[in-house]
C-alpha cells in the first residue's frame, strides 16, 4: 500500500497557519465543513520525496480546553483521527502564549513538530531564538519558517518526513510540583487499574479530570465507575484546593505557564546593538482606535467597502445580467427558427438561463466582498472594528463583529449573511444571520423608487429613508426577542486578541476570495436554481396558459392569497403574484407588476396610481422590505446554518411583514 502521511496544522489564531497551509498545498486544497457544524475544514495534499502527504488545517485555537466549538473540533480530530504528525505553528514574536498550545498538544501525546513561524519579524528586532535548546527541553524537532516569504517550507516538509520515519514516543512531561504530582500519580494508578477511557493518554486524562474539563467529565458520565471516579477526583481537588488556597485548574495552568516563561527566557537571546523600533502596531492603533478618530475612520472604511462591493460590483453584475439577457434572446430566436414548442423555449430562456443568471449575478459582489474582508482580516483591522463597535452591538444583543455583516446587508443580504462567518460564537452568528434580511438591500430599491416616486414624489427621500430606518429598528427588536427566546443567558463574552497589524498576503487573499466565491456558487447555486425552476413551473402550468397569467398556478395562488393582503390595502392578485415572484429576487417585483398590468415605464406608474393609495403603497413597500428574503438569501442562510433556522427566518419574516403592513394600513386608515 502506498504510504500517505496525515498531518494536522495547529496553532493560535493569527499565527500564520493558513499561510503555511497555502504554502504547503498550493492549489491542491479543498474547503468543506467539519462534520455536523459550519466551522470550515480545509485540507489539501502535497508530495515530498515521493511520499504523499495530506494536511488538515485545524481551527485557530489558544488551548485544548474545549470551551469553544473550535477547540472541541481540534481536539476531537487529534484524538479520534490520530494524525501521524501534528505541526504546532508558533508566532515567534509571542513565544510564551503560543507554546502553551504546543505543551497541551504534547500532553495529549501527539507526534509534534514545533514550527517557529514569522521568525523574520523577531530576528529583525534583534532577538535570536535558540532552537537547539528549545528542541532539547521539549524533546521535539523545532524548525523556523517565514511563511509569508515562503522561507523554511522545505525544512518543514523534511522534518515531517523525519519524525514520521523515526516514530519515537515523546516523553516530555511538565513537572507540576510535588503536591500536584502526588495526586496525579494517585489518580493515574486508580484510573490505570480500572482501564477507564484507555484510548487517552493516562496523564492527560488525569490532568483533564483535575481541570474539570467538561468534555471528559461528560465521557465519564454513564460509565459503571462514574461515582467512584468522581469521588476520587473530587477528593484530590478538595485536598489540593485546601493546600493552594485557590482552584486547581488555575494552579495547573499557572504551572504550565511558569514552565514556559522560564523556557522562553532561556531560549530568547537579545543581540545587543540593534535598536528596538517602536512597535508599528502601536503607532497605527494610536490613530485607528483613537478616541475621536476611531469611529470616523471605521465608518469611512465601511463606506469604502460598501462602495467597492456595490459600485464596482454593479457594472460587472450588469454585464452578467445583459449577457444572460442576450443569451436568452439568442436562444428564444433559435427556438423560433427551429419551431420548438413554446414551453421548451420558455423553460430554457425564463427557467434555466434566467435561473443560472440569477445565481451568477451575485458573483461579482461576493468576490469583491471577500476580497475586502480577507484584507481587513489579514491586516488585523477586523478585530479593531469589533473593538470599536462592540458597545453599540452589545446593547442590541449582538457582538462587535456583527456590525460588518449588518452593514453589508444594506448592499445585499447574501454577502451580509456570509460575512457573519467572522463571528466565532455560533449563537452570535445565527442571530446576526437571522436579522440580516431586515437590512434593506439594494434589490428593494427599485420597488421603493417606483412606489415612492408615484405617491410621495415630494418626500421620496424621506419615505425611502423611513423604510431603511424601519428595517434597522425591526432588526434590533427581533434580535432582542430571538436572543431572549433561543439564546437565554447566553451572553457571548468578548475576549479577543488584537493581533499586530500585518500586510495581507496577496496569495492568501486571492485563495480566500476564490474559496468563498466558488463555495457560494456550489452550495447556494443549486438551491437558487431549483427555486427559480420551481417558480417557473408555477407560472407555466397548467400547460398552455400564458406565462404568469391569472390562469397559471401562480396566478391562482395569487388570487387565493389576495384576500389576505386586502387587510393591508393591496388585495389584488397582481400584487400577490408580484410578491411571490419577489421571492426569486426582490427586484423582479417591479418587472412582474409591469408584465401583469401589461405596461412599462411611465405606464406602470399610472396603473399603480390607480391600483394603490398612498397608504397601501407604503404598506406594500413595508411588506417588500420585511417578507421572506429572496431565494438566494434563503439558500445562503441554509448553507450557513440549517433548515431549522432557515425555516424560522422565512417564517418570522413572512408573519412580521404581513403584520407590519396590516398595522400600517389599518392604523393609517383611522387617520384618513
Amino acid at each position: 500500500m502506498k504510504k500517505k502521511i496525515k498531518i494536522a496544522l495547529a496553532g493560535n489564531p493569527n499565527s500564520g497557519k493558513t499561510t503555511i497551509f497555502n504554502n504547503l498545498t498550493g492549489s491542491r486544497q479543498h474547503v468543506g465543513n467539519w462534520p455536523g457544524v459550519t466551522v470550515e475544514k480545509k485540507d489539501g495534499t502535497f508530495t515530498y520525496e515521493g511520499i504523499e502527504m495530506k494536511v488538515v488545517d485545524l481551527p485557530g485555537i489558544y488551548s485544548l480546553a474545549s470551551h469553544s466549538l473550535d477547540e472541541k473540533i481540534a481536539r476531537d480530530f487529534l484524538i479520534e483521527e490520530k494524525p501521524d504528525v501534528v505541526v504546532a505553528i508558533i508566532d515567534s514574536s509571542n513565544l510564551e502564549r503560543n507554546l502553551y498550545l504546543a505543551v497541551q498538544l504534547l500532553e495529549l501525546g501527539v507526534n509534534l513538530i514545533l514550527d517557529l513561524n514569522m521568525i523574520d519579524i523577531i530576528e529583525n528586532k534583534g532577538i535570536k531564538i535558540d532552537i537547539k535548546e528549545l528542541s532539547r527541553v521539549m524533546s521535539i524537532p523545532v524548525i523556523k519558517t517565514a511563511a509569508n516569504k515562503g522561507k523554511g517550507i522545505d525544512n518543514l516538509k523534511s522534518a515531517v518526513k523525519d519524525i514520521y520515519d523515526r516514530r519515537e514516543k515523546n516523553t516530555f512531561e511538565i513537572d507540576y510540583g510535588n503536591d500536584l504530582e502526588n495526586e496525579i500519580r494517585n489518580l493515574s494508578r486508580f484510573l490505570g487499574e480500572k482501564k477507564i477511557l484507555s484510548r487517552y493518554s493516562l496523564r492527560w486524562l488525569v490532568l483533564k479530570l483535575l481541570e474539570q474539563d467538561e468534555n471528559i467529565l461528560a465521557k465519564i458520565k454513564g460509565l459503571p465507575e462514574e461515582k467512584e471516579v468522581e469521588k476520587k477526583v473530587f477528593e484530590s481537588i478538595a485536598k489540593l484546593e485546601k493546600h493552594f488556597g485557590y482552584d486547581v485548574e488555575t494552579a495547573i495552568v499557572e504551572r504550565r505557564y511558569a514552565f514556559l516563561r522560564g523556557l522562553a527566557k532561556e531560549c530568547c537571546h537579545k543581540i545587543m546593538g540593534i535598536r528596538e523600533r517602536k512597535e508599528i502596531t502601536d503607532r497605527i492603533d494610536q490613530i485607528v482606535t483613537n478616541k475621536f478618530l476611531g469611529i470616523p475612520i471605521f465608518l469611512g472604511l465601511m463606506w469604502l467597502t460598501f462602495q467597492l462591493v456595490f459600485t464596482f460590483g454593479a457594472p460587472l453584475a450588469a454585464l452578467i445580467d445583459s449577457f444572460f439577457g442576450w443569451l436568452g434572446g439568442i436562444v428564444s430566436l433559435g427556438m423560433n427558427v427551429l419551431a420548438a414548442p413554446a414551453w421548451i423555449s420558455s423553460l430554457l430562456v425564463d427557467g434555466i438561463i434566467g435561473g443560472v443568471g440569477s445565481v451568477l449575478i451575485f458573483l461579482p459582489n461576493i468576490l469583491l466582498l471577500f476580497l475586502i474582508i480577507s484584507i481587513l482580516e489579514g491586516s488585523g483591522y477586523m478585530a479593531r472594528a469589533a473593538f470599536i463597535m462592540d458597545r453599540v452591538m452589545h446593547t442590541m444583543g449582538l457582538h462587535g463583529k456583527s456590525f460588518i455583516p449588518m452593514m453589508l446587508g444594506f448592499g445585499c443580504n447574501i454577502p451580509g449573511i456570509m460575512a457573519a462567518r467572522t463571528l466565532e460564537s455560533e449563537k452570535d452568528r445565527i442571530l446576526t444571520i437571522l436579522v440580516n434580511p431586515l437590512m434593506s438591500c439594494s434589490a428593494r430599491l427599485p420597488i421603493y423608487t417606483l412606489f415612492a416616486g408615484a405617491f410621495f414624489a415630494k418626500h421620496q427621500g424621506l419615505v425611502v429613508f423611513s423604510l431603511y430606518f424601519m428595517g434597522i429598528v425591526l432588526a434590533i427588536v427581533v434580535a432582542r426577542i430571538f436572543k431572549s427566546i433561543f439564546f437565554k443567558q447566553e451572553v457571548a463574552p468578548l475576549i479577543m486578541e488584537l493581533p499586530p497589524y500585518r500586510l495581507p498576503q496577496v496569495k492568501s487573499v486571492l485563495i480566500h476570495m476564490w474559496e468563498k466565491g466558488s463555495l457560494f456558487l456550489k452550495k447556494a447555486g443549486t438551491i437558487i436554481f431549483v427555486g427559480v425552476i420551481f417558480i417557473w413551473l408555477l407560472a407555466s402550468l397548467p400547460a398552455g396558459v400564458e406565462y404568469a397569467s391569472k390562469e397559471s398556478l401562480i396566478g391562482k395562488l395569487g388570487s387565493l392569497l389576495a384576500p389576505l393582503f386586502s387587510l393591508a390595502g393591496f388585495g389584488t392578485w397582481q400584487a400577490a403574484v408580484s410578491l411571490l415572484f419577489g421571492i426569486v429576487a426582490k427586484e423582479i417585483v417591479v418587472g412582474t407588476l409591469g408584465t401583469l398590468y401589461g405596461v412599462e415605464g411611465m405606464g406602470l406608474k399610472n396603473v399603480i396610481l390607480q391600483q394603490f393609495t398612498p397608504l397601501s403603497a407604503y404598506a406594500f413597500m413595508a411588506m417588500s422590505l420585511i417578507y421572506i428574503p429572496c431565494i438566494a438569501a434563503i439558500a445562503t442562510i441554509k448553507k450557513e446554518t440549517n433548515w431549522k433556522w432557515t425555516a424560522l427566518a422565512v417564517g418570522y419574516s413572512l408573519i412580521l411583514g404581513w403584520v407590519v403592513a396590516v398595522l400600517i394600513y389599518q392604523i393609517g386608515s383611522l387617520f384618513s
Partner: protein
Amino acid sequence: MNFLSPSLEDYLETILMVSLQEKVVRVKDIVKLLNVKAASVIGAIKILNEKKLVNHEKYGYIELTTKGEMTAKKIYEKHQILFRLFHKVLGVDVQTAVKDACQIEHYISEETTKKITELVEYIETLSDKKKDLWLSDFGNFLREAALKKKNTQNKDGRNQVSSILTLNNLKIGQKAKIIKINPESKIKKQLLSMGVLPGVEVTVRKVAPLGDPIDIILKGYHLTLRKEEAVCIEVEVLE
C-alpha cells in the same frame, strides 16, 4: 469637689452592678469581680464613704447612697452606650468593645455622650434593610478612603502599599498584577488559556471610543475584553 478617679468610678459602677443582681453587696463580691485585693477594696470604699457616695458599716454590707447611685448609673449608661456604638454599630468585637468602653467612660463629657446616644438610637431605629444600606455604604466609603490614602502614599514614594481592584477599574496607562480570577466565572477557562492568570502583569492600553471594551497588554500582546468581563479579574495596582 466631686471628682472621682477612674478606679473609684469603676468601684462605684461595680457596686451598682452587683446591687442590681444581688440583694446585698459584700466586699468579697467586689474583690471577685474586679480581681483586686480586699485591702484595696476597703481603701476605696473608705474614700467613697467619705464622699457620701456609699454607706458602709465595718464588716457589713455596702450600700449606695442616692447620690452614689445616680453617679454610678451615669457612668454605667456611658459604658452601655459606648459599648453599643463600638460593638453593634461599628462592629468592634465584644472584648475590645467592653475594654474600650471601660476606659473611655471615665473621660467622656456629658454632651458628647448625649450626641452619641442620639446617633446610636437613630441607627438602631432604622429598618434592617436601611441599616445594611447605611453600613455597606459606610463600608464602601471606608474602603475607598483607605485606597485613596494608600495611593497618595504611593505617589509620595513614602510607603509602598498596593491596592487591590478589579481590572475594569484600572485607568488608561495603569499597570497591575493579576491576583485572582473569580473561579465561578464562566470565562475563566478562556482567560486562563490566553495567559490571563495570577501573577501576570497587565497594562491598560486603551478604552474603546464608546467607553467599552478595553484593550490591555499582557505577555506582549493586546487583548480586548468588555468591562463586564474584566470584573472577574482582581488586580493589584503597581503604578
